């Protein structure tokens, strides 16, 4: 898994590529927490379009990001979910807990 961040207007986009599992989820957790707490972006969009695997530890990193964002009143949006990510969020009944958009453009407006 690799992550990188981009600034688009008042939003920070976190691009995630690869497989999120016990080996990599702590990196994702760290990036999300730093992005949320570091700058004062009004909105953080996590682009999962190139993630082909996620496990429960990856979902935990996303849930923790969501919790932090709520405390800081930052919008936290997921976008580009492929079948692997979507299925795991459904299975864990978390799909409705997150704000989820199809595309990055929608996530920037949502």
């Amino acid at each position: 898994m690799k992550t990188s961040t981009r600034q688009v207007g008042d939003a920070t986009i976190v691009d995630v590529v690869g497989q999120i599992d016990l080996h990599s989820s702590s990196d994702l957790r760290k990036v999300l927490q730093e992005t949320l707490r570091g700058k004062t972006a009004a909105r953080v969009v996590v682009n999962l379009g190139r993630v082909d695997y996620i496990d429960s530890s990856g979902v935990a990193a996303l849930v923790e990001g969501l919790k932090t964002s709520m405390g800081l009143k930052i919008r936290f949006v997921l976008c580009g979910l492929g079948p692997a990510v979507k299925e795991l969020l459904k299975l864990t009944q978390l799909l409705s807990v997150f704000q989820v958009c199809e595309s990055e453009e929608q996530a920037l407006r949502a």
Partner: protein
Amino acid sequence: MNLSLKLELPSDPELLRVIRSAVKEFAAVTGFSEDDCRSITVAVDEALTNIIRHAYQNRHGEPIDLVCRRCDEGLEFILTDRGQPVDPAKLHGRPLADVRPGGLGMHIIQKIMDQVEYGQVPEGNRLRLMKYWKIRQEGKS
């Protein structure tokens, strides 16, 4: 026809993607659909993750055996470790409505697999996961 493959791996998270790719292909060879292959892979991965985190408390280099077996009823996975035994009182995970990080692995495994059995054998802790062929699966509900 029976077909089986045994993997002996250390409790190292780096190897999880290697095991996932083998499990996914094994499920594909035995005839499961792409969706089933994907979810079966998640269940085995979560089981391995739990062994690394809980049985071995994140110590790397400890032995885990994974046997994948195609049998008459479906696909069976047997995981064996020599770490701390499971505490049945803790095994259930958290209520899903209580949204917080963690506590999801057991839910995932149980939703995907048709049988999930923890036990003790002379070699250590044993976890048996079973996924029935679709026909059986539909019959069971």
